[in-house]
């Protein structure tokens, strides 16, 4: 299934092989090219290069040509103020500057920056037939606000017929520009009308519905699909938006996705959104972006949902955050890992593993999703399983499937962040990579040598001479001391004559003289090791 098919099927609420991903790359593509928004959004060449770069990096199922809601308003005579890291903003509303509504004309395809956008749309649609290329148009109400300014709210009372005439004009602009984008090869038109979030459903039905409906109707009549984009606090309008008969409704983080799903499902309209633009995509880390994407995907579900940010991506959004989203959208295995990781992080608990790995044997821990279900995990486990017998009982290996809570805690405690991972005596050794046999053997051998060295350095011994303190005992103690002296070892020798203590060593006073060699090793200090770790020490002495 191509990305375009996936998006179109999702828009029609038909089953898809996976949730489609449509990053709304606008001026952010300028950042990818290293140029400011005021340069990027003025040239078809830059837009083509920017969208191509975005496609290469983010491998999306769909992508907009550009995200700039001021194009039509600019052609119609509004002044713009440009910024380096934002699309431009309308700074003077043409209808509040003495221009009559009747003097405005619907923009032609060859006018202003619309020509650049349409040239880009043609090139991108032709170069990427397997992706859904979105043409974005300014929604009728937002365009009306651009043309008139906030006086629109006063005029709704003072001169209602004028507002209807204005909205009718904006509808004509929207229908026409939507047609231009369809002519240019776009398969989806997004009618972006964020300012509708400023009004309630009654006013929406009065001033928006009659003018939005024909826009979606015109898109449908061309065999294409229409998405209704809105950002801000628009929850109250979801129902009336759906009644405008778009194929899809797309919202930002201000509206809970569960609410959007419920309302859209009722109307059999697909929906999209609502990755958090600022706190997650702009300011967060890849893991945050993945966690947020998974939350959206879990709510959105496999049918009739498109994963997307709620609005135009911020200029400076770190590309690695978007790449992280792409990864988990396209790779179910990585998604499961990210899901589990987020649970692990949320649990914020772990074991004190500072004393881990001090048992005589070398412990090889393999952190996996589940070797029975995940191929890389399986290969990693098999690699360890194969070499372990070569060490003749010196190596013990264990698989920790992170689908189980205790394994998650264990993984968190060892600071493991990727799966599968091999830890040797608690030290992260191979991350997301199946080691070659020799490499794995060498790593284990190195650990064995390290342990031997450490053990020699840290071990202490004691020789107890048990008996009545008589001649035999004295002779035994003397021989022990001679042996220690000849070896040059630091071993303490102690005579035990108390019968009760002799009995505690499991020998009868009648069996004396007895020599007991006791070995001591400092296993932990200034902390309380976990029971699981102590068990490993104990196993060594049993």
């Amino acid at each position, binding site marked *: 299934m191509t990305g375009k098919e996936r998006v179109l099927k999702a828009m029609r609420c038909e089953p898809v092989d996976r949730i489609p991903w449509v990053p709304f790359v606008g001026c952010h593509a300028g950042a990818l090219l290293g140029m400011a928004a005021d340069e990027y959004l003025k040239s078809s060449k830059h837009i083509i290069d920017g969208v191509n770069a975005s496609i290469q990096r983010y491998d999306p199922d769909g992508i907009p040509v550009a995200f700039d809601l001021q194009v039509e308003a600019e052609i119609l005579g509004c002044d713009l103020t440009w910024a380096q890291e934002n699309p431009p903003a309308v700074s003077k509303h043409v209808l509040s500057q003495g221009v009559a509504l009747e003097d405005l004309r619907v923009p032609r395809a060859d006018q202003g920056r619309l020509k650049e956008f349409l040239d880009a749309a043609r090139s991108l649609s032709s170069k990427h037939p397997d992706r859904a290329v979105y043409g974005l148009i300014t929604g009728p109400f937002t365009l009306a606000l651009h043309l008139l300014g906030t006086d629109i709210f006063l005029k709704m009372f003072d001169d209602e017929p004028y507002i209807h005439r204005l909205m009718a004009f904006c509808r004509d602009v929207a229908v026409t520009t939507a047609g231009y984008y369809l002519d240019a090869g776009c398969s989806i038109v997004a009618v972006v009308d964020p300012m509708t979030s*400023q*009004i309630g459903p009654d006013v929406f039905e009065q001033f928006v519905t009659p003018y939005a409906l024909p826009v979606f109707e015109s898109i449908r009549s061309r065999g294409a699909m229409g998405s209704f984009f809105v950002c801000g606090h628009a929850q109250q309008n979801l129902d009336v938006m759906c009644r405008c008969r778009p194929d899809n409704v797309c919202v930002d983080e201000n509206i809970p996705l569960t609410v959007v799903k419920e309302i859209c499902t009722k109307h059999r309209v697909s929906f999209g959104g609502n990755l958090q633009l600022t706190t997650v995509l702009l300011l967060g880390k890849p893991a945050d972006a993945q966690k947020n994407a998974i939350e959206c995907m879990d709510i959105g579900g496999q049918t009739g949902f498109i994963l997307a940010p709620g609005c135009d991506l911020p200029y400076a959004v770190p590309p690695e955050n978007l790449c992280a989203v792409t990864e988990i959208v396209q790779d179910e295995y990585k998604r499961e890992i990210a899901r589990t990781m987020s649970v692990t992080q949320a649990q914020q608990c772990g074991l004190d593993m500072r004393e881990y790995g001090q048992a005589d044997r070398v412990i090889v821990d393999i952190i996996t999703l589940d070797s029975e279900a995940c191929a890389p995990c399986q290969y990693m486990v098999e690699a360890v399983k194969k070499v372990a017998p070569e060490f003749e009982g010196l190596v013990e290996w264990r698989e920790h499937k992170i689908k189980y809570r205790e394994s998650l805690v264990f993984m968190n405690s060892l600071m493991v962040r990727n799966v599968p991972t091999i830890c040797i005596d608690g030290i992260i050794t191979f991350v997301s990579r199946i080691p070659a046999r020799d490499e794995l053997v060498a790593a284990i051998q190195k650990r064995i040598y390290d342990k031997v060295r450490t053990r020699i350095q840290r071990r202490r011994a004691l020789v107890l001479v048990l008996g009545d303190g008589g001649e035999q005992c004295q002779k035994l103690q003397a021989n022990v001391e001679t042996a220690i002296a000849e070896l040059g070892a630091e071993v303490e020798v102690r005579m035990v004559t108390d019968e009760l203590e002799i009995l505690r060593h499991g020998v009868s006073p009648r069996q004396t003289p007895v020599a007991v060699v006791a070995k001591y090793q400092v296993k932990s200090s200034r902390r309380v090791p976990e029971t699981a770790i102590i068990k490993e020490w104990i196993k060594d002495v049993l």
Partner: protein
Amino acid sequence: MSECGSIPAWLLTGYLGAGKTTLLNRLLEIPSFKHKRLALLINEFGDIGVDGALVRTGEWSKFELNKGSLFCACIKADTVKTLRQIAFEVKPDAVIIEATGLSESSDLEALFESAALEGRLRTQANVCLVDASTFTRIAAFLPAATRQVQQADGILINKCDLVDQAELARLEAIISRINPAPIYQTSHCDVPSAWFEGLWHSCRCCGMSQSPPAGAVSVSIERVAPVDRAKFTSGVRTLGDKLLRLKGNIDFGDGSVMVELAGGRLTERPAASLSRAPTAFVAIGWDVDRQTLMSLLS
């Protein structure tokens, strides 16, 4: 910086033209601010740079946001960036934020509490300016106008010279019902510094009111057949204070006349033009549902 280490922020909200910039200029003169290191954050939908240019120059850092509604998701990134700059680099004694008439002040509080600002900013007081001459006209169409009043710690009813006493009393009653916070009436943002300094912030968006405040609704009525004058007058009388505004053409059987209700008074004059049906008018009600409003007037 305050004792607790966070920078106090004053938020000025209100519809375009309510007088926020005038108020800001006045505030810059009052003792609480005059000798402080201030940061000003200014945004207005559309008329970019205009408000910023009107703010007088002085010893303060001025930041302007040039895109749409302050605190909308589209501008959130810029807002966070600017607020971080103010909080971590400029570190002023206080911040004054002049928000657009379309913004939701509760979004600002959420922003202050976000991890990005690390608790460096806090709302000292949220002051909403209400334009006495336009509030009842826009409230039915722009819910943010009512919400800004609802979330304010102090409400300044400005431009009182443009309406009569009866209308002003009615407006104050409506505002008090939305939010019982202190109200001050003025004509040119002439507010005593003590009133302003006496305001303190409380979160009005989470739990102060258990039920939503009464709201303004609008209906648009069109009909070809003449309207029965007696029934219409009776409807207006029944609605009483609940009918805030009415404007448009009505044909009582002798041709269309322009009818307008403002400040509780109904006036008639010759119709200017007939663009639609002989009867076509808009009415705004308060604390009344649309159906009742519609049935009593049509």
